C-alpha cells in the first residue's frame, strides 16, 4: 500500500529539516509532501533541498487549508494511506507504522493519534488541564464521539475516507481538525485511536487558539 506523509508547514525552518531527515530513514522522498503555507522563512527551500514534494500556497491559508491541499495532492499522487504529520518535531517517525496498521489490516478507515492512551507524553500542566481536557469534553458533547484526544496533528486516513472528507473541508484554520471529526461522524467512517508520543516545546496551540477555534465553529454554524 502506498503511504504518503503530508506535513503542513508554516515558518517551520527550525525543525522541518530534522523531521524530513527522520522521515527519509523510513520513506522515500517522493512519498513525503510538505505544504508550505506561504512561509516567510526558508521552510519551502529546506523541503526542496531534501528532495521531497513541495506544495506551495501563494497566500497563507492556515493549518486546515494546508492539510486539505496536502491530502488532495496525496490523493492525486495515488496514495492508499495518507498520514498527517506535524513539521515541528512533536511526533516520532517510528510511530507512523503503528498508526497505519489498522488501515492496512482493514480494521479502520481513519486512525487518530492520542496523547492520553497508554504512552506518556510530556504535556505541560496548563495545556493539559486548561486547554486539552476542556477541548476533549467540548468535542465529546458536540460530536458524541468517545475521543480521548482532539486536535492531535498525527492522523492517518485510508484513501476512500480521505476522498470523502477533504475535498469539502470548509474550515481553513485550526478548526479544520474539528471539521474532520465531524466528517468522520457524518460519513459513519470506522475510526480508531492509537497511542502516540508527543514531545512538547515552544509550539502547539495555545489558549487563544482554542478561543479562535470556538469562534470559527460558532460562526460556521450560523452561516451554514
Amino acid at each position, binding site marked *: 500500500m502506498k503511504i504518503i506523509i503530508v506535513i503542513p508547514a508554516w515558518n517551520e525552518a527550525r525543525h522541518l529539516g530534522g523531521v524530513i531527515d527522520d522521515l527519509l530513514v523510513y520513506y522515500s522522498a517522493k512519498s513525503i*509532501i510538505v*505544504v508550505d503555507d506561504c512561509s516567510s522563512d526558508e521552510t519551502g527551500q529546506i523541503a526542496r533541498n531534501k528532495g521531497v*514534494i*513541495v*506544495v*506551495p*500556497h*501563494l*497566500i497563507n*491559508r492556515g493549518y486546515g*487549508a494546508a492539510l*486539505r*491541499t496536502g491530502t*488532495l*495532492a496525496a490523493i*492525486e499522487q495515488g496514495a492508499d494511506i495518507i498520514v498527517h504529520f506535524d513539521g515541528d518535531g512533536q511526533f516520532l517517525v517510528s510511530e507512523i507504522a503503528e498508526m497505519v496498521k489498522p488501515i492496512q489490516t482493514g480494521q479502520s478507515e481513519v486512525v487518530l493519534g492520542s496523547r492520553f492512551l497508554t504512552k506518556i507524553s510530556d504535556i505541560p500542566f496548563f495545556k493539559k488541564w486548561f486547554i486539552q481536557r476542556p477541548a476533549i469534553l467540548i468535542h465529546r458533547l458536540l460530536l458524541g464521539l468517545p475521543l480521548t484526544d482532539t486536535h492531535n496533528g498525527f492522523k492517518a486516513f485510508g484513501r476512500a475516507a480521505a476522498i470523502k472528507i477533504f475535498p469539502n473541508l*470548509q474550515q*481553513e484554520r485550526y478548526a479544520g481538525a474539528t471539521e474532520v471529526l465531524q466528517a468522520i461522524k457524518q460519513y459513519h467512517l470506522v475510526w480508531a485511536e492509537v497511542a502516540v508520543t508527543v514531545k512538547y516545546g515552544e509550539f502547539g496551540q495555545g489558549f487563544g487558539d482554542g478561543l479562535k477555534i470556538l469562534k470559527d465553529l460558532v*460562526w460556521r454554524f450560523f*452561516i451554514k
Partner: protein
Amino acid sequence: MSKYFIFQLIITILAALVWVKILYRLMKRQLSWAKGWWWLAAWLMVVVVFWWPGLTSWLAFNLGIGRGADLIVYIAILVLFYLLFRVYVRLDQQQREIGKIISHLAIKESFDDLKKQS
C-alpha cells in the same frame, strides 16, 4: 411650493432612478428576484414615508414606540445589522473560494515541478 414638497420630489425621482436600475439588473439577471423585490419594496417604503410621514407616527404609536422618527431609526439599525451580516457571509464565501484557488494552484505547481524533474 413648500420646501418639503421639493424634498419629496427629489426623493421620489431618486427612488424612481433606483427602481429603474434594479429592474434593469433583474432583466439582465444580474440580481436575484428575491433580492430585487426586497430592494424595490425598501425604496417604495422610502417614498411612502416621505409622502405620508404621519404613517410612521401612527405605526410607532400602535407598536408602543412613541415617535415615528424613533421607529425609523430602530428599523434602520436592524436593516444595517442584517446587511453587515450579509457582508460577512459574502466575505467568508469569498475567502473559501480563494482557499480553493490557492489549493488548486499549489497542487498544479508541485505537479509541474515533478514533471520537470522526471
